[in-house]
């Protein structure tokens, strides 16, 4: 056994291949947070008065709140908000006529990340094209395929641009799902958010391509606070992808995002994330603190919101993508794979709030813990009074690798209507020595066998991801768990 742990330790040294930094000329705010900084950000972005008001209200509310430390299964020191730079943007001319005007260093960065900012069909795999909004630190640097989408009436742009160009939509929807007073990190985000993506799919339009936002933290000492708002109007459909990475640094960096989704009657939004923030080194030094509020509302009947997340990065993950099932017959889904290795901590899950009649929700959560990590599922299923015939099915599985990690499940179920049917299944397992030996006996070495077994374990979730993303996710999983069993 001792020898086995030795091998285990020796081998837990998987490389984070996105850990490079880029030397881009940046425009940054002074360190720290105050009302002046909030005004500074708003001014930098040339925002209208109502936007600044929203920020200030949020900031003042935030001052009265406490950083949550009691309930989540996470341990971290109190964050010093005066040590964070709240605004950092690549210096550039206001309007970019073409890609040629983008800092070549920046283009190189996205090239290294495998993100194409060129509007050309991707050759790999399926015929699909993906429109990308690229966000680096505090600002969106480029959104592709805007014109093509505009022909269908689809708006896909940076949040800042939407504030300028579509104030009526922003005013209508921003904060309607996640109010600024929702929680500590949502309040912080509402005060200092710098950019993000906005997308609006008009009535009856099926978005012809995947929309995606790629987030990159680059500058040392900065926090990233982006906001995403997705609206599917009546009968509209969109599939949205989110990816993220950060350089390898010794200090912890804060990422506190807000994502709001609104689905109107017969509308459907599918939101997929592959979260790959820098997780810290194998001793737990550095890494991103990922405190994110994601929530969607199925506003009217027959609407559907589906969250799929593959969480492999971050030192700390605190994230509960949720669905408010307000419309009758609406559907909420949550599919999650959360992997923690070394000293990573994750407290993640979902909330399904059944309000309308005949609402249905499905939760499939697959936790994988390796190294000295801790992985918790926390989920709430609430059926309000009058939510007739609500149905929920939850399945929470945990997989342990090695003997120093932990897996925890905290399901909360609140039922106020007798007609509800709620099911919860949970399992905890280890990758069996028997499974490994069986694979080895067929000629498959341990590393490959682990990959095979873990991918099998996650299959239900991977099946939900768009093709290209699923392949990416599988590879990522293999890298994250490299050498985690001796």
């Amino acid at each position: 056994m001792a020898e086995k742990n030795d091998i285990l330790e020796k081998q837990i040294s998987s490389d984070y291949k996105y850990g490079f930094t880029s030397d881009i000329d940046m425009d940054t705010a002074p360190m720290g947070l105050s009302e002046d900084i909030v005004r500074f950000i708003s001014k930098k972005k040339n925002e209208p008065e109502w936007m600044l008001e929203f920020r200030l209200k949020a900031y003042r509310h935030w001052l009265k709140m406490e950083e949550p430390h009691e309930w989540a299964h996470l341990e971290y020191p109190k964050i010093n908000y005066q040590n964070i730079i709240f605004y950092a943007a690549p210096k550039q001319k206001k309007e970019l006529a073409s890609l040629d005007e983008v800092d070549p260093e920046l283009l190189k960065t996205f090239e290294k990340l495998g993100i194409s900012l060129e509007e050309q069909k991707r050759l790999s795999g399926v015929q699909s094209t993906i429109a990308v909004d690229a966000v680096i630190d505090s600002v969106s640097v480029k959104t592709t395929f805007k014109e093509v989408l505009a022909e269908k009436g689809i708006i896909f742009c940076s949040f800042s641009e939407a504030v300028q160009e579509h104030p009526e939509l922003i005013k209508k929807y921003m904060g309607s799902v996640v109010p600024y007073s929702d929680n500590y990190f949502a309040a912080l985000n509402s005060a200092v958010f710098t950019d993000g993506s906005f997308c609006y799919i008009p009535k009856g339009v099926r978005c012809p391509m995947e929309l995606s936002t790629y987030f990159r933290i680059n500058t040392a000492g900065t926090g990233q606070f982006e906001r995403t708002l997705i609206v599917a109007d009546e009968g509209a459909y969109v599939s949205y992808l989110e990816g993220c990475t950060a350089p390898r640094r010794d200090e912890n960096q804060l990422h506190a995002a807000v994502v709001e989704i609104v689905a109107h009657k017969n509308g459907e939004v599918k939101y997929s994330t592959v979260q790959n923030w820098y997780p810290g080194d194998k001793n737990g030094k550095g890494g991103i603190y990922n405190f994110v509020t994601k929530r969607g509302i199925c506003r009217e009947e027959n609407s559907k919101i589906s969250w799929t997340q593959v969480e492999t990065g971050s030192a700390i993950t605190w994230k509960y993508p949720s669905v408010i099932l307000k419309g009758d017959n609406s559907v909420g889904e949550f599919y999650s794979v959360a992997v923690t290795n070394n000293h990573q901590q994750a407290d993640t899950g979902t909330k399904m709030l059944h309000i309308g009649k005949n609402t249905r929700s499905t939760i499939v959560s697959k936790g994988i813990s390796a190294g000295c990590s801790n992985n918790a599922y926390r989920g709430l299923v609430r059926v309000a009074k009058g939510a007739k015939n609500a149905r929920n099915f939850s399945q929470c599985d945990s997989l342990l690798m090695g003997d120093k990690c932990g897996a925890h499940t905290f399901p909360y179920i609140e039922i106020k209507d007798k007609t509800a049917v709620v099911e919860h299944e949970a399992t905890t397992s280890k990758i069996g020595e028997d499974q490994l030996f069986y694979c080895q006996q067929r000629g498959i070495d341990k590393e490959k066998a682990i990959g095979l077994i873990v991918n099998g374990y996650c299959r239900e979730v991977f099946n939900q991801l768009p093709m290209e993303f699923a392949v990416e996710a599988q590879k990522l999983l293999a890298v994250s768990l490299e050498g985690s069993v001796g």
Partner: protein
Amino acid sequence: MLSIKNLRAGIPGNEILKGINLEVKAGEVHAIMGPNGSGKSTLSSVLAGKENYQVTEGEIWFSPPSPRGEGSGMRRKNLLEMSPEERAREGVFLAFQYPVEIPGVSNINFLKTAINEIRLHRKQPPMETKDFLKLIKEKQALVELQGTLANRSVNEGFSGGEKKRNEIFQMAVLEPTLCILDETDSGLDIDALRIVANGVNKLRSKDRAFVVITHYQRLLDHIIPDFVHVLSNGKIIKSGGKELALELEAKGYDWIKEKDQT
């Protein structure tokens, strides 16, 4: 092909195999019989290289026939120095007594991974999907497995009989040179037993050897062995031809055990 010399092995603090000697030549079928707890399954685990077992003494040599017919002596391998996957890639196959379930991994994906690992070891390119599917179809017929089983997760939700048939199916696909069958007959009804035995018989060839571990004579009615060995308390106490199995069936194991002690 297989040469076991004075093999002593067990789990720490408990010696289970107490000096096994066995010679198996290409083309031969050896049956190993014995009462519960005699060390039969330990022997198969040690041959396949399961980590939990410690070998304290003795040698195991494996000489698969050379692909170009250069004579078997050319490729003598010390099994005890090889990892389980290296042994498998060299052609040692163990049909498990309790086949393991791997949820979410399709049988077909599992086999494709295995076959390509073996091919890589032989410095062959990965098999074309078209050829692989053809191979699967052909070998499935051998053990009368239905097409749908290939797409189901490895052994998950398989009946006892299906699991054992799946083992023989995998054996047929991977084409090993030394096949070890660990109580493949346990839990099989008469029809499944016949199907499994037929599958094995079709795989018999002059280049391939079988070590068949079983409690009962009934499997040996279908798979006729060249030699029968009786394992008791960690040692082979009697060896003979196929008629020894019949004698055991009639008289029980105590008969030999007593004889051995006197």
